[in-house]
């Protein structure tokens, strides 16, 4: 079965191609179902292939597909181990649900089938990423998902904002990719290959700490871009221009977590570069709190989730940065569940509110759409970290590991704790604003519960968010055991042993969660006027948060505008007048010389004979000079 693992990539890919050419004829909803089916099939294949791992038998293997760029030891080969298995299952699993959801969500869009082409393509790319057996192929998937996100964010390209957002997403990612590429240069020069199997065993004897740190940081640059960390997170909020299911799939569950995956994958290298790891952790933490604060004040339902995603990714970075890779991946998984759920829920809401996204214009939707409300509620609790939901376990493991690490990490621990408080706050705020309180809808909107194709995925994800955490509790660390072979021989960071420590830490985090959530609930339960006053109470902070610290403006002024000016200067004030001017100048020079010499041919015989005689004299003198 494992030898057929390539099917996981192939199936969605093929279906994508099929839909690309014939989707139009299949039309709605058939195209959607076919696509979902494909992803589902991929999930099944992945599951079957992963069974041996669950049994704890099979070891990792590398399946060589075909040569790609032998000269740099980069071929298309699949690395099939527990880590990739987890990723595959998460991607395909969540992917399937989101596909189904999209069928309902995109009902009536004239480019219905197109979306599923892109989505399937994305799934295929994402799987390529996680199944890659070498950095080149990983980069292949890495870029392809970026490409798909470009397509999907710009799905409604007629909206200039969407088009711009798509471009922004791709370009910002590219910035990180430059770092990634350079990192790969270093990797190749140090190892003479890009293949994981060739790198990780030999890492310790090949790499110096310096080199390891350099590589680590450069890979980090790539990860920062893809996973929307400081300073490159700015593309993610804009990316919300895409259809909501897309946001759920790409910008919550899967693609953005690629950075985390990359670092976890490269654990062997980070192992040798503590400095790099520390940087990862710091960036993660910083992002976590930074984004959380912004999320506090957002009015757009999706923006809240977007920043929350950024913040949660920060958590994961913190985890992998403090070498708690398992915790990181674990949180990645649970986050995939509940954040996908949240986005889909938000999608369902937006769908119901006929594309209204401003939470100030919502409220009191609970009665109208109970399923959405409840499922989203579960997700909210999960992300807030209320036991025994998934979020609690994963977040708690991260906090625990960080705490256990001690030293500098203690500070990070504190910040992370505060962040979880904020998280609880803004999530609760969102839920309350949307579902409770008196309706603040615009006239004409008549909310209604979404159809089954949309609610069923919600329910499914709700269940996952509820139970997903149980795979790895301090009491039953099966997930950890499952992943152990991947990180063999690396010093993994674990939460502190012992029940007491666990209770204390859990208590702390729960306390934070409850506090945040409670405050939010109490303040936003009350009528609009009062909670608006409450928000004003935080001015000017609140305003800054709402405007996301105006980072975009800063970047615009600091990078984009000067770049444009430079380019214009180069094009119109340097290239044309100077470089090209020189060329034309030479041409004109000769013509000019010619014109200057024309008078020589005055038309007067006597000038001519003078010239002749002068020439004669010169020749004779020269001859005599040379000869005698």
């Amino acid at each position, binding site marked *: 079965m494992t030898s057929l693992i390539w099917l996981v990539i192939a199936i969605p890919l093929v279906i994508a191609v099929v839909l690309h050419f014939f989707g139009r004829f299949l039309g709605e909803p058939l195209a959607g179902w076919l696509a979902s089916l494909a992803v589902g099939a991929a999930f099944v294949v992945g599951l079957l292939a992963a069974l041996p791992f669950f049994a704890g038998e099979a070891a990792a*293997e*590398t*399946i*060589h*597909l*075909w*040569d*790609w*760029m*032998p*000269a*740099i*030891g980069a071929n298309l*080969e699949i690395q099939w181990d527990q880590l990739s298995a987890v990723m595959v299952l998460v991607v395909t699993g969540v992917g399937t649900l989101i596909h189904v959801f999209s069928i309902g969500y995109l009902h009536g869009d004239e480019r219905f089938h197109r979306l599923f082409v892109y989505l399937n393509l994305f799934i295929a790319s994402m799987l390529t990423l996680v199944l890659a*057996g070498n950095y*080149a192929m990983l*980069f*292949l998937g890495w*870029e*392809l998902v970026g*490409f798909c996100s470009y397509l999907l964010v*710009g799905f409604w*390209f*007629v*909206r*200039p904002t969407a*088009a711009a957002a798509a*471009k922004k997403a*791709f*370009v910002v990612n*590219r*910035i990180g*990719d*430059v770092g990634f*590429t*350079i990192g*790969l*240069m*270093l990797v*190749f*020069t140090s*190892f*003479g*290959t890009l*293949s994981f*199997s*060739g790198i990780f065993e*030999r890492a310790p004897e090949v790499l110096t700490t310096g080199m390891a740190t350099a590589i680590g940081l450069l890979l980090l640059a790539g990860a920062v871009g893809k996973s929307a960390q400081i300073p490159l997170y700015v593309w993610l909020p804009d990316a919300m221009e895409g259809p909501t299911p897309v946001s759920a799939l790409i910008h919550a569950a899967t693609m953005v977590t690629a950075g985390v995956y990359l670092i976890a994958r490269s654990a062997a290298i980070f192992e040798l570069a503590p400095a790099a790891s520390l940087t990862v952790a710091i960036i993660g933490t910083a992002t976590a709190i930074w984004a959380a604060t912004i999320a506090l004040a957002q009015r757009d339902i999706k923006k809240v989730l977007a920043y929350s995603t950024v913040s949660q990714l920060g958590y994961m970075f913190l985890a992998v940065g403090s070498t708690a890779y398992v915790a990181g991946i674990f949180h990645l998984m649970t986050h995939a569940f509940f954040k996908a759920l949240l986005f889909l829920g938000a999608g369902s809401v937006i769908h119901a509110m006929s594309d209204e996204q401003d939470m100030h214009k919502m409220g009191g939707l609970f009665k109208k759409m109970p399923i959405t409300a409840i499922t989203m509620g579960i997700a909210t609790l999960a992300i807030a970290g209320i036991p025994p939901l998934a979020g609690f376990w994963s977040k708690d493991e991260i906090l625990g590991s960080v705490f256990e690490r001690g030293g500098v990490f203690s500070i990070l621990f504190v910040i992370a704790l505060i962040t979880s408080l904020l998280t609880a706050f803004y999530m609760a705020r969102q839920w309350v604003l949307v579902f409770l309180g008196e309706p603040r809808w615009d006239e004409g909107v008549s909310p209604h519960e979404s159809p089954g194709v949309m609610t069923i995925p919600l329910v499914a994800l709700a269940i996952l968010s509820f139970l997903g955490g149980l795979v790895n509790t301090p009491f039953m660390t099966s997930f950890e055991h499952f992943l152990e072979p991947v990180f063999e021989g690396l010093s993994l960071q674990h939460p502190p042993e012992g029940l007491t420590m666990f209770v204390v830490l859990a208590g702390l985090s729960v306390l934070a969660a409850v506090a945040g959530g409670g405050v939010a609930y109490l303040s936003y339960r009350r009528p609009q006027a009062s909670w608006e006053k409450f928000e004003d109470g935080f001015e000017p902070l609140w305003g800054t948060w709402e405007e996301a610290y105006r980072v975009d403006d800063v970047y615009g002024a600091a990078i984009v505008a000067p*770049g*444009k000016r430079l*380019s*214009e200067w*180069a*094009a*119109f004030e340097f*290239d044309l007048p100077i*470089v*090209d001017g*020189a060329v034309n100048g030479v*041409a004109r020079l000769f013509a000019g010389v010619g014109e200057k010499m024309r008078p020589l041919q005055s038309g007067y015989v006597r000038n001519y004979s003078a010239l002749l005689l002068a020439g004669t004299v010169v020749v004779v003198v020269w001859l005599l000079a040379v000869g005698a």
Partner: protein
Amino acid sequence: MLTAIILVPVVGALFVALVPANRKELHLPLGIALSIMPLAIAGYLFWVFAPEPGFQFAVDVPWYEPWGLSWSLGIDGISMPMVVLTAILVPIALGASGSISVRTKEFIVYTLLLEAGMFGAFMARDLFLFFVFFEVILVPMYFIIGIWGGERRVYASMKFFIYTAFGSALLLAAIIGLAAMHTSEFGAPSFALADLATVSMSGGTEKWFFAAFALAFAIKVPLFPLHTWLPDAHVEAPTAGSILLAGVLLKLGTYGLMRFNLSLFPQASVDAVDVLGILAVIGIIYGAVVAIVQPDLKKLVAYTSVSHLGFIVLGTFALTSGSLQGAVIQNVNHGLTTGALFLLVGLLYERRHTKKISDFGGLQKVTPIFAGFFLFMIFASIGLPGLNGFVGEFLILIGSYATVPVLAIVAAFGVLLAAVYFLWAYERVFTGEPDREENRAMKDLSIKEIGLLAPLAILVLVLGLYPNVLLDKIAPSTEATLDHVEAATGYVTPAPGRLADVFVVGEAGE
């Protein structure tokens, strides 16, 4: 076989010339048909070509012994891809010339002659012969630009002609000099590449000769700061002209650098790595930066060529297996993608009679297929993995680091800029609401036009995912070239520059 592939277009051209001028409807189909024949031969060559170093299908017919001239052709892993590329692009270029209404006949004739010239230049194993073709190519291209070009066609064609001729003038001097040195050393003149490579010369002389060759090719490439003829030529040239210019003619420069500079002047090449590398990298960044704000779509693409060919030059002189293979295959890749892009821009122009970006907008809604192809080619050119552009650039970048780390790092930013200029252009041309009336009325691609683009798209995809169809056949020759350089100079490529250094993972998978 090789002689045939050159003669077929020539004879074809004469044949077309004989067709009465009033039978207009015949000319274009005839031309396309005639250009398919070389394609068939090229396909056969590609098929039969064995992945070994050295020249294959060699032809050696003495031409004028007293001067040591000989009609000697042959293809190896470096030239074979170029021959195939040429054979592919010419029919497409002709197919894209449906809009050429005046003097169609002459147009076909020139194009076919151009094709013959390009074949010859890529296959020549005798420097005199090479120069003949290298120079002859200018004439038909000059006419193509000058007669069927845009408003400033005269200026552009003149500039193209004279500028490039200037480069080749010194090349001629250098060739003469080499032959003379061969005569004085071995008693008999010869222009055969193999013979001239054995001429022993002092370092200084070698540098001078190298400079002459490099200058000629650098102008063709074009390498910063010798690039300014290119935008003008492209903007004015008709679609077919642009396709062939960007697709093939520029490659003569990079090809020349690989073929002649490396094998004739190894020492000088090794010494020049930094100089040319720096120029190449400047070209990469500069071309990209300048491209960003170009108001004219065609000019933009032209400047991107400057940027992309910088990669090829960098790869060539990084002198590692990876980078050199990358350079060779990037020759093909750039030919395909940029050729396709020029074709698309040309189709835009046919529809709207403007190339100014600001005149467009929202086209994706009106012409989805068009937009699709455009986006596809853009991303191929940006270097999206899975498409061909990536393979070349990645090989070049990763490969170059071993020898010129700093340059490789800087070059990596070119990839970023590529995304900037192309995506911004795409955004302005294709996305948004189609506001202008004429844009809303624009027709999408016809079946015929799709027929022209599809082959390119397929090749782009194939080369992106399975480049080995070429790399296998390229590698032996590039290795041979590098061995030659190392042997002749005692220069040692820093690990892991050569294939031997590549760490092969135990045959995983089965």
